[in-house]
């Protein structure tokens, strides 16, 4: 069971990162901040799981990392969503919607 829930979590992290980058390029810490802000601290992604996830997504070709500057003028690797990433985001969104509908049905059932 433990194995499955991490899988699910991993997928969730991917979806959250992709969705965040859809709004514009960001560096690692800013991505985590943004996710925490939007979900009102429901999802707090620690760097320990954020950075591996970023590199995995990059290896899969969904996002591109380039050295750049943060709005505060800090040197950081800034990530952009790639075309493949956009497509992947669509797929994951639909997946998620299916799951959430299904979950909703389960929970609402008598």
């Amino acid at each position, binding site marked *: 069971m433990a194995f499955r829930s991490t899988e699910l979590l991993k997928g969730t992290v991917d979806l959250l990162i992709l969705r965040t980058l859809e709004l514009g390029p960001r560096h690692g*810490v800013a991505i985590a901040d943004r996710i925490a802000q939007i979900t009102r601290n429901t999802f707090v992604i620690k760097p320990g799981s954020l950075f591996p996830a970023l590199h995995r997504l990059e*290896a899969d070709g969904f996002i591109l990392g380039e050295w750049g500057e943060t709005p505060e003028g*800090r040197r950081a690797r800034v990530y952009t969503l790639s075309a493949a990433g956009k497509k992947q985001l669509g797929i994951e969104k639909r997946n998620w919607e299916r799951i959430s509908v299904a979950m909703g049905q389960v929970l609402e059932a008598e």
Partner: protein
Amino acid sequence: MRILARARALYRSVMRRKQVERDLEDELGSALQELTERYESRGLSPDAARRAAQSDVGHIDLIKEEVRSYGLAHTFDTLWQDIRQAFRGLVRTPAVGAVIVLIFAGGVGSATAIFSLVNSLLLEPLPYRSADRLVFVWQDLTAAGYPRAPLAGPELEDLRQHGTLFSGLAGIWANTVALTDGPEPELLRSGLVTQDFFEVLGAEAMLGRTFRAGDDGPETPPAILLSHAVWKRRYNSDPRLVGARIRVNGRPTTVVGIMPESFALLLPQDAAIPDDQQAWVLLGRDALTWPRQQQFLRVVGRMKPGVELADAQREVAAIGEQVGREYSDYGKDGAKFYAVGLQADATREIRPALLGLFAAVCLLLLIACVNVAGLLITRASSRHHDTAVRIAVGASRLRLFRQCLAEGLILSAIGGCLGLLVARAMLAALVSVRPPALARIDGTVLDMRVFSFAAVLAIAWGVMFALAPLTQLVRTTVLSVLRGGGRGTAGPAGSRVRSGLVVFQVAISSVLLITSGLLAKGFYELQRTKYGFDPEHVVTFKLSLAGSRLRGAAPIAAFSTELRHRLAAIPGVTAVGATSHLPFDTVPNWGSPYLAAHESDETRAGLADARSITPGYFETVAAELMEGRWFTDADAYNSLPVTIVDTMLASRLWPTESAIGKQVKAGPATTGRPDVTLTVVGVVRHIRHREVTRDVREQIYFPAQQSLRNPMAYVIRTTTDGADVMVSVRSVIAKLDPTLPIYDARPLESYAAHARATRGFTMVLALAFAASALILATIGIYGVTAYNAAQRRSEFGVRYALGAQPRQVAGLVLRNAVLLAAVGVAIGSFAASVAAQLIRVQLYHVGPSYLPAYAIGAATVLVAAVLAAWIPARRAARISPIESLRAN
């Protein structure tokens, strides 16, 4: 653009690994910095802020490790480590590695070589257009002892008129033509074909064209089609030859085309149409109206598109039935036609042999596999301790598995490459010792299909290599091994299986050794066999009078007599004669029906091989006269028709009385009917001229003067070197007539040797198989003995400690091996006696229970077993008791 992005990531991870690592470090450093600053801005002390940030980020090395594992670089990295580790393992025990690679190369090589034969002979379609629509038509004259007979001209016409399922039916007849232009006259093996032959066959000319309608018109000059080889050799590949006139059989003839170099006529072997024909000319139109008794045409048909072979076969059979009803002559009664797929029939004789060979090679390959797996298991169990330690310090089983796989694949890659070389060498060797009947294997090549076969074999085997030691790996539980002092955990069941395999291998190699011993003895007997003639010290050559000035019986007879007298005068020549057919030659047979003179019922006629011979022929080949006399010059074209018959014919017609003076009707003038009454003047012992091992059919001999044949084969018995005599022969003939083509100058023994060659080939193959099986069994015995001896190390130590002598311990090891071998030999000998019954037809003058073959075979295997067990036995004798006990 995902692929591009991936490629970029891949590039980064592989080529710029350092860069990526540095990026990651920088990135994490900068994140740490940012978070620290953030905590500080919330009012934490710099120290507390740093600690909080660090606990957020986590263990940087762990992150790095995780990120690393995404990249392919990591995969390559560990793969490379695995390969290096595997290499180290192999180098540590180089002998085992070398043996495995050699077995592997031998196994894959031989299987690939045989597969390439199967591929080119059975799998590749015949090199003609839509070859699957071609059929070959036979006539079944079983009643006359001729189940696969040719058709007569009118019968081809019947097929053409009544056949509705064929787009064409064509005939061919093998013969010779003489090229009489230029200073060197030459006789060519040629095919006489109907005008549509090449069209039906689906073969095109390389230059010019094949035959077409009108080529056989009465006004047009004769046409000839030449093979690529003749065109290249005799005419220096001159393209202007097409359309030019050359002299063929003394007549100006138009060269209409040159066939491609790759063209070969692949008809069934027993159709007596050589593969390597050199020229084709048209069969005269009247050939299709020759008498129905003259069966000479080999018929090839092309089915219309969409026609099923079974329907075509029914139609051909129905037409044959019709013919059999309308013309019920001798032997024709109940005659049947039958059509067979050309490819299936062309490979009819070779297919079982080839598939048998392939099965044998696969069996050997399997044994080799088992042995190699055994060696690897033995080694894996000797590395048991090593493996357990590695598992204990945290190596994952997946990792160990990958290492085994790497080892297997390294072995199979090296072995596979060597195997291809072995396959090439074996193929070359097979082609060079092949009997003439297997000429078709010459064109065998290692093509893509063969390469794929070898690759699949190599990979499958490599994976199996990897899995074999794994059986040990799975059983390895760290504690039991470490506590058990490094002894393997293979139970008694495992060692029983291995012993069983060794017994099986020993049995197989005994079977092969014993049967090949029987075959060798049979071949030895065959070489000593009298065929009814003595081929030693006889040289032969052929001479064609086609195209010479000689016309009519009298001048030809005079020329022949003169030539024989001049040849006889050559120093060193003791006898001279000539015949229409040399024994074991491949020229088309001449059969004549015969009938006792008082018999009028033609359906009772027999069919004999007819030969036309000059006086002196029987004397030269040292045939045995049983009764009466040989022919003399007095048996001339205008004197009483006489004949010499063989013992088979004489005993069939006159079983109880002498044949001399009896009268027989036969067809010396090649009309195909027994229409001439001849007086028997002599009986000769049957001469084997078709098969070396048995008497095939009755023989009837006519004096050459009373039955003109061309070309004739001359035989000369010499006391000196045959080659010297041939020089004199050529000058004698050149003096008589320099335009006469002499060809096929070779010793009579070479015809007999050719006839024996197939059996010799079988014997060589059997010996080769037996030798390889023996080598494999030896390796198998070694493997098992070494394994068992290693398992018993500590037991031996105890024995030494209790006062056993090294010899006694070595004896224990040896005894075990010899026991296994003895059981194998016993089973093998029994199986060999069964196998010998099955291959009885292959055994010539040797009983299937010929004891020396069994004794030698069994002794060889036992000696090999002792030698194989010697090394582990000696090793056991040198065990130091203290060390072996301390190892516990």
